[in-house]
């Protein structure tokens, strides 16, 4: 079943589930090993190169890596990758000497980034060291975008934002703060070589219901309210608060409200608890702070007495699924429920808004009034204007914004060198043997039985009293080591060399997960059914060899391989070897300009 074109860069990258799932393709196992070795600054720099904001992401990332983590398929829970990233940021030494120097060389190209959020800052970080003159514009006095305005300080301290935003500006990036771009056509008249739009999804969706206008003084849009809290314009809230919405913004709202005087704070969602958009850990954190989450309740009316809010009336619903599995919420027939409250925070979604981009200047918008953006190059229909982050495809998260920034920087760099941005260089890779002795490897191949460790928290009484007090304490070095040792080192790949194999079965016998089978060749579906252990996870590849001496092939199911290296330890001929895979993704600079 050998595929016609076996692409090692892609094949082995996919085996590293976490790295493959990370939009910025952070080499996770590599930095986790460095954390285990106590080399925090090295671990930080690996992160910094890939995702620009290790300290910020180590606290706030949506962690697409964790559901993908192989450990979650082998044991109960994935490695706490996100919080290990924070460990690298917490315990590193001064990393400034390791940062790229301000470029002496100027290539004469001028790039503008509109909005100073994570997407724009990534573009600036990638391009400034190459000699670009990068100018970042933002309406706010400080850079960071939603990272600074919407994420509460008890989750992400201001110093962390200042530090990591600072590293970007240290590269010689100019910041024009308090400068709101009001007209794109006027802006484009300044002859920028490239313009990157990273203005986020700045408008909170409202909830129309009777009483909304009358009680407006007591009903706030979640993201605006969070920004006001972040800048200190809002410092208290009433005792009884209802938060409407089930996303991460709702979680930030309710937890902030708890810290600003809200004693009876509730989250009420339309959908079921399980289907809420908020990440499971954010829901857990909210409930841990004594905030109930009530589900299947649709707001029907804001009740008030002369403009003073008294509460919200909810219709009770239940979920019904049609033949195609689509859900609709239908009235359950139970009586409506009235919940008393003094203030309401509406966090039912965010929208993009581009009132400042004139239509008809070459930037096309689609029927949802979103810019038409190329998924790969991030280019708009105006060739030198690019979009990224939430402003490109609607609200996602920080790590996607970073990935968009990298992609746009590659496009801009290619375009400014007269190359077609839509031609993307194929990633390079290296595979290096980790063998150090007969049974010694350069990585720790013993498999830890440790279960996932919890990050210690500040006790509730203290945490709820101070909105700026970071509630998570982070792992200490001992816990960080224990957690890091749970990583299965999936980047250390099992590499098989047909011509060395004598078919002694030693690898088959030793493999703790029954991953390896020697059998007759066949089409993939047939082969999967004939392996020593069921290979039902078709998302995970089968690693197969050409025909061996007996005519059979070697087939390995990658799904639950522990990367323990026992197959290679028990192989008498070195037909199995453990080799560290490193993917070299093209980034702005020389690597993206060669298409070899």
């Amino acid at each position, binding site marked *: 079943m050998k595929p016609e074109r076996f692409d090692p860069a892609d094949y082995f990258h996919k085996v590293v589930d976490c790295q493959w799932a990370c939009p910025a393709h952070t080499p996770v196992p590599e930095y986790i090993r460095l954390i285990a070795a106590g080399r925090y600054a090295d671990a930080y720099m690996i992160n910094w190169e890939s995702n620009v904001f290790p300290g910020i992401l180590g606290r706030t990332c949506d962690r697409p890596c964790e559901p993908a983590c192989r450990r979650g*398929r*082998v*044991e109960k829970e994935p490695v706490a990758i996100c919080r290990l990233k924070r460990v690298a940021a917490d315990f590193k030494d001064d990393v400034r000497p390791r940062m790229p120097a301000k470029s002496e060389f100027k290539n004469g190209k001028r790039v503008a980034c509109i909005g100073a959020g994570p997407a724009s800052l990534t573009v600036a970080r990638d391009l400034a060291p190459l000699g670009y003159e990068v100018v970042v514009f933002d309406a706010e006095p400080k850079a960071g975008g939603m990272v600074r305005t919407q994420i509460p300080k008890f989750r992400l301290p201001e110093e962390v934002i200042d530090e990591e935003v600072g590293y970007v500006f240290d590269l010689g990036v100019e910041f024009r703060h308090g400068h709101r771009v009001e007209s794109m056509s006027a802006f484009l008249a300044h002859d920028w070589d490239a313009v990157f739009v990273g203005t986020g999804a700045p408008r909170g969706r409202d909830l129309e219901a009777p009483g909304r206008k009358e009680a407006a003084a007591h009903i706030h849009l979640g993201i605006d309210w969070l920004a006001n809290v972040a800048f200190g314009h809002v410092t208290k809230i009433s005792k009884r608060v209802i938060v409407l919405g089930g996303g991460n913004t709702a979680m930030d709202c309710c937890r902030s409200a708890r810290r600003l005087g809200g004693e009876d704070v509730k989250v009420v969602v339309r959908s079921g608890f399980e289907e809420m958009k908020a990440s499971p850990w954010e829901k857990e954190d909210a409930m841990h702070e004594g905030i109930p989450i009530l589900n299947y309740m649709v707001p029907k009316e804001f009740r008030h007495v002369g403009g003073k809010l008294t509460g919200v009336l909810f219709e009770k619903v239940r979920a019904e699924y049609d033949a195609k599995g689509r859900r609709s919420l239908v009235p359950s027939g139970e009586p409506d429920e009235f919940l008393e409250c003094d203030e309401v925070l509406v966090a039912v979604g965010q929208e993009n808004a581009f009132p400042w981009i004139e239509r008809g200047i070459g930037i096309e918008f689609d029927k949802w009034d979103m810019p038409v953006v190329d998924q790969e190059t991030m280019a708009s229909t105006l060739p030198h204007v690019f979009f990224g982050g939430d402003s490109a495809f609607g609200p996602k998260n920080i790590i996607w914004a970073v990935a968009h920034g990298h992609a746009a920087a590659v496009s801009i760099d290619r375009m400014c060198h007269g190359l077609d941005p839509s031609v993307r260089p194929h990633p390079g890779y290296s595979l290096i043997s980790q063998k150090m002795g007969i*049974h010694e490897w350069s990585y720790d*191949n*013993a*498999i830890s*039985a440790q279960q996932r460790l919890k990050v210690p928290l500040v006790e509730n009484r203290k945490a709820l009293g101070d909105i700026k007090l970071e509630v998570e304490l982070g792992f200490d070095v001992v816990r960080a080591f224990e957690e890091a040792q749970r990583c299965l080192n999936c980047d250390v790949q099992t590499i098989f060399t047909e011509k060395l194999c*004598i*078919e*002694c*079965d*030693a690898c*088959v*016998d*030793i493999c*703790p*997960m*029954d*991953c390896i089978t020697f059998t007759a060749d066949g089409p993939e579906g047939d082969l999967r059914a004939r392996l020593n*252990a*069921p290979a*039902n996870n078709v998302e995970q590849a089968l690693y197969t060899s050409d025909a061996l*001496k*007996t005519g059979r092939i070697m087939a390995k199911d990658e799904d*639950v391989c*522990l990367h*323990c290296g*026992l197959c290679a*330890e*028990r*192989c*008498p*001929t070195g037909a199995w070897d453990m080799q560290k895979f490193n993917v070299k993704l093209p980034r702005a600079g020389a690597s993206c300009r060669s298409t070899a």
Partner: protein
Amino acid sequence: MTFLPKPKFRHPAIETNELGLTHRDYEGSISTLCAGCGHDSISSAIMHACYELNLPPHRIAKLSGIGCSSKTPTYFLGNAHGFNSVHGRMPSVLTGANVANRELIYLGVSGDGDSASIGFGQFAHSIRRGVNMVYIVANNGVYGLTKGQFSATADKGAKLKKGAVNSDSPIDLVAMALQLGATFVARSFSGDKGQLVPLIKAAIEHRGPAFIDCISPCVAFNNHEGSTKSFDYVREHNEAVNALDFVTERAPITTSYAPGDMQVVRLHDGTFIRLRKVGADYDVHDRIAAMNYISTREASGEVVTGLIYLEDHPEDMHDHLDTVSTPLNRLGDAELVPGQAALDKINAGLR
């Protein structure tokens, strides 16, 4: 040799047998033999056979002598009884254990040195006494623990790694077992679990002396060109007389095989083995013909494998000695020490 313990994690969809055990519950500690040793494959085949037969590990006794082969019982069935005896004395210890407790399953694991040299006499007598056991020889033709000198089963003309040629005649343990009256005789190859696992299962179910000579290449000292016990040589010269399916269902078998191509053999406990004949018209029930056949084939350089001989109505040592059917550890003092009157009666009978 691997220093790490084998990780405890197992495949999330691993299957269990009727006892609720997985094949990993039949493991022992991690092997300290050389990487790629054929003996490890034999251990693995034993584990799979016991797993597939739903045998509770604690009802098995594994006994061995000295040598690479005899180290292996440590590496399988960690919850079975074990006895690592003096060099070549495994058969006597096994016989004694079997006399005392006939209810356990006895696995004698030995090597070509342990059984064809120092323990040759012991091997012979345990077979001719008809001890109910599975006697497996992991046969690699060299003394691995002492760095690869020829053993007594090395073929005349075989070459050592450094070129020395064997001038002595080999002992063929299969021929010996046939001659000495083993009621189940087989030869297999560690590199062919498809053949080895069903053979071990059938041997365990067989009630009588079952002997399996398993060629097991020594990757360190006897897996080179010129060796007649290497992976390549055995694969090239392997002549299987039959292929064997072990049928666990205790019901008669209906199959689609053409008559004459297949032979169904009923074992003492009602299980069946199904033999598919390969090539020559070979009858597993004809001991004399079997001896002739293997001598002829081996003279022309073939390695005959498969189930070579099977006695349908085997007898074992306990039948011959008319021993008590209850294991001695379950008899009380009154039965074990019948007293002066009983002794007097016996003595009187001998006068």
